[in-house]
């Protein structure tokens, strides 16, 4: 039998057909983004041409032949295997064999040694495979196996291959980046290898390499003018500085999203936000309101598939999903985690970095990130800008120490003065603030709730449940009291979210009290009349204020913000341990700043947008924080990440967040929906339809919630997790937790351990 030169079993694709697909995509990329920096297109083309030729080896071909033979329509075509003369040798990965096809002597005349290293290594390492001990077997395969086939391999894009060259370790032994490599070589390698991977994946998945961003700028403009607006000061600035890196502070409600879209313009863009809810919201807005369309917009976070299902009549458009995952859409709304993990330089990290090098990156709500994530982001920005990528940080609150760290890393950016929302030329005033130097309690609320929409935000779920219980006792029949936090199963969580959104609409006249945690801090577009809150830190406080009088001017003399800073002890959730929601030092500084600002104005003090930003500046200044753990954490994390050597990690080992979560299902929910869950589990096991499987999994996940690992461990220790779990698949087992759960209160942690003596139980 003759060597069929196959590349893939799907459609019996040959090496030549597959290579042609790559070349098409490379041309498309070149056409759409012609000015990609640090890239020699000739080298990339060679890499595409030769990257899979090693697949013509006997063992690889036989593997595909055997697979195809099992498919009925191909059985006759592939009656027998190729003759394998090396039966006691393992297959050598094709990536390691392909470089032998390169016309080494000819290339040496055209390219420098470093350029050849870039070319050879891009091909050699295009899949991450086990390292070869030495090249002795590779040499034999090249000389005695591949050599048999080259006469029969006719591909008009490369001159006929007369001889193979098995000696190429000169170009691959010193893996880039090596200590002797110039930054130029390293950059070129990242681009060549990253783009080869990207092109290869797109070709294999049958999706376009990039979709051109035709008109995001015009669409945004149309949207703005359809509402009767012209670009405002901020938006004008962003239009003028499209080719710069910017750090923008702008007050809420000023049109940051549109400003960001204007800045991205008709380029490839990524829009990152900290919370999935806000990502979903922006995605819907860009697709439906701005009408950029879903063919141009991707949504990327850990639950992309279920969000796509929801928006497409429970059917997953696999191609669209793949395009999103391969980062090939013009605009992708995503979490930071999806992008910046490349800083760990795992095998294959080049792809994301190369993609970002010709993209524009928006970072919103930067103050929401933990010190570790801030450190990761700063390192990522350093790498991205070095390769020519652009970023804009667009945020309502910006701790100035972030900028100090960025400057330390030599990241260049513009920083215009903050943009405030102005009313009649004056900075908008929305809030008047009163501080209680006591622990949060319901005394004042009880006097002040009537005919108002009251929002109470506390730091922990436990505190929220406590306050809820108290108010329910005192005011149950007087007004509507509701509780919302993160310990609700998904299904209930979205219901509650809709309820609070509904109440938060300005045009809804109904009143009531909502008790929540910081889950509402940033994501939800709600407008309440008065806020009672525990202090966390200054940035958080401002975010929380943003939920009250969202876009309204303050009425004369009205106090609408009440802050409890604690008396002898800290507010809930704050301490010196690791689980503290905010660094203790930052809490103290925030408390001082607030107290100093309010001074002895007993009846409250007005606080406008400008003052707010100055308070953040004060608290988060380098001088104040230099001794704090918060500062040290960022500094150490940056150092640690910068010290990582390339290829020390595999991608699956990378974890950006050190807080691990565990998905659980409350026992009573499980009991109530047992049959439904079992039916879905059955579907997962029985069906081979990917779509159906996904839907079934999502149905089950609607009954789950995620809790921090340490809480899960505690529950387990105390006997609340029994042996049962729901097995979605090999990797996803959901434990059942027997904490009480209700739609009203969410998951509550019982006071006692199960095996402890319980007096009530004894008398039943």
């Amino acid at each position, binding site marked *: 039998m003759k060597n069929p030169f196959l590349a893939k079993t799907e459609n019996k694709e040959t090496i030549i057909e597959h290579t042609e697909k790559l070349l098409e995509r490379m041309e498309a990329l070149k056409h759409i983004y012609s000015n990609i920096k640090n890239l020699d297109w000739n080298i990339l083309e060679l890499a595409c041409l030769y990257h899979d030729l090693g697949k013509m080896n006997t063992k690889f071909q036989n593997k595909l032949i055997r697979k195809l033979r099992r498919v009925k329509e191909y059985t006759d075509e592939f009656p027998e295997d190729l003759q394998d003369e090396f039966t006691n040798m393992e297959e050598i990965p094709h990536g390691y064999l392909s470089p032998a096809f390169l016309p080494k002597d000819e290339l040496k005349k055209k390219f420098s*040694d470093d350029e050849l290293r870039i070319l050879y290594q891009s091909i050699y390492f295009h899949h991450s495979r086990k390292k070869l*001990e*030495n*090249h*002795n077997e590779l*040499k034999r395969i090249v000389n005695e196996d591949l050599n048999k086939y080259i006469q029969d391999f006719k591909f008009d894009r490369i001159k006929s291959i007369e001889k193979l060259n*098995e*000696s*190429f*370790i*000169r*170009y691959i*032994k*010193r893996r880039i980046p090596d200590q*002797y490599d110039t930054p130029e070589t390293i950059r070129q390698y990242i681009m060549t290898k990253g783009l080869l991977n990207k092109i290869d994946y797109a070709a294999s998945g049958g999706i376009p390499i990039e979709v051109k961003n035709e008109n995001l700028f015009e669409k945004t403009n149309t949207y703005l003018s359809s509402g009767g607006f012209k670009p405002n000061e901020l938006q004008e600035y962003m239009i003028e500085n499209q080719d710069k890196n910017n750090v923008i502070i702008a007050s809420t409600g000023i049109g940051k999203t549109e400003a960001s879209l204007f800045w991205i313009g008709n380029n490839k863009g990524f829009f990152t936000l900290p919370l999935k809810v806000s990502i979903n919201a922006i995605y819907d807005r860009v697709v439906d309101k701005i009408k950029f369309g879903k063919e141009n917009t991707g949504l990327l976070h850990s639950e992309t598939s279920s969000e796509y299902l929801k928006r497409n009549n429970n059917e997953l458009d696999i191609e669209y999903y793949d395009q999103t995952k391969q980062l090939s859409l013009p605009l992708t709304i995503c979490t930071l985690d999806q992008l910046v993990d490349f800083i760990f330089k795992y095998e294959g990290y080049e792809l994301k970095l190369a993609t970002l090098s010709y993209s524009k990156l928006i970072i919103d709500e930067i103050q929401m990130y933990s010190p570790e994530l801030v450190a990761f982001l700063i390192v990522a920005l350093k790498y991205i800008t070095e390769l020519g990528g652009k970023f804009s940080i667009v945020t309502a609150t910006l701790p100035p120490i972030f900028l100090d760290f960025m400057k330390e890393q030599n990241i260049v950016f513009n920083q215009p003065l903050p943009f405030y929302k102005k009313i009649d030329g004056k900075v908008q005033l929305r809030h008047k603030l009163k501080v209680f130097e006591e622990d949060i309690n319901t005394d004042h609320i009880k006097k002040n709730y009537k005919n108002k929409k009251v929002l109470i935000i506390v730091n922990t779920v436990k505190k929220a449940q406590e306050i809820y219980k108290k108010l329910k006792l005192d005011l149950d029949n007087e007004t509507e009291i509701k509780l919302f936090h993160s310990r609700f199963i998904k299904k209930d969580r979205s219901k509650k979210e809709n309820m609070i959104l509904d109440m938060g609409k300005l045009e809804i006249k109904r009143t009531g009290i909502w008790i929540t945690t910081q889950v509402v801090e940033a994501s939800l577009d709600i407008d309440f009349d008065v806020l009672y809150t525990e202090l966390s830190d200054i940035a958080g406080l401002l975010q929380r204020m943003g939920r009250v009088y969202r876009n309204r001017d303050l009425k004369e003399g009205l106090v609408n913000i009440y802050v409890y800073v604690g008396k002898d002890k800290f507010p809930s959730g704050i301490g010196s341990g690791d689980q503290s929601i905010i660094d203790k030092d930052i809490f103290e500084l925030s408390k001082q700043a607030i107290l100093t600002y309010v001074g002895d104005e007993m009846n409250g003090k007005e606080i406008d947008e400008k003052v707010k930003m100055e308070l953040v500046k004060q608290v988060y200044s380098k001088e104040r924080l230099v001794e704090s753990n918060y500062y040290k954490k960022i500094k150490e994390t940056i150092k640690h990440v910068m010290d990582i050597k390339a290829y020390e990690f595999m991608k699956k080992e990378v974890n950006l967040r050190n807080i691990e979560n565990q998905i659980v299902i409350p026992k009573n929910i499980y009991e109530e929906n047992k049959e439904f869950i079992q039916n879905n589990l059955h579907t997962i096991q029985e069906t081979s339809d990917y779509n159906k499987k996904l839907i079934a999994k999502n149905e089950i996940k609607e009954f789950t919630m995620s809790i921090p690992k340490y809480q899960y461990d505690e529950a387990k220790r105390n006997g609340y997790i029994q042996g049962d779990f729901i097995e979605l698949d090999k990797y996803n087992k959901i434990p059942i937790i027997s904490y009480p759960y209700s739609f009203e209160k969410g998951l509550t942690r019982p006071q006692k351990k199960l095996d402890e003596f319980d007096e009530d139980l004894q008398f039943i």
Partner: protein
Amino acid sequence: MKAIRLRIYQNLVNYRKPTSFQLKETYPLPPYSTVSGMIHFVCGFEEYKEMDISVQGKYYSKVNDLYTRYEFAGTSYENGRHNIKIKSREINKKTGEEIDKYYGIIRGVATCELLVDVELLIHIKPKDEELVEVIYETLKNPKEYLSLGRREDIARIDEVKIVNVDEVEIEEDTTLEYDAYIPIKMFGIDDFNSNATVYNLNKKYEKVEVKKGTFIRQWEKVKVIHGVMNRNELAQEAVVYKDEDENLVFFA
């Protein structure tokens, strides 16, 4: 150029790392000074003869063995500290009369690393070419058994031969067939690239007087990579020394 090629077999051997005490560690191959010392000893050279040496070889495995250690620091015997008491005589400085003096020694067990079934391929090229013949003859007919490493590490000589060594460009990527000491400055970074251990080996010493009447050996060192057989590879076009039977030679 001419050089003497030696093939040696040793059953259990320790090429001691000078700084290892609790456990007598061994280098993977004999360092240059050890080889040089053996040659000087068997040939009866009373002063240093300059020579280039290339050391390659392989061993089957490594074991740890016990040995009896005598620890002697020249101190007077103290009861409870030393378990061996030896008698000597010394002259009392004041009176001038000869008296008894007792030194203490500690005898105990300690551990020693041993390489098992070592095969060595050694090339020696004395600067003075006339010595080639001399060394060849003495190795052919040594006055007593040869040892390399500790005194008891007997070396079985399997071959002594005068060979031609020439500089050549290698025609294809070549995998090392033996472990080898490869001076780190010998190759360009792309001719030979390795992450293997680097040793700073003794080559020769000079006696230096550090204070009146006290001499120390001041060593000239060579930085080498411990090239690993079947793993480290030399790239096509690298320039190397080879002997007439195609063996690689790495002179230092």
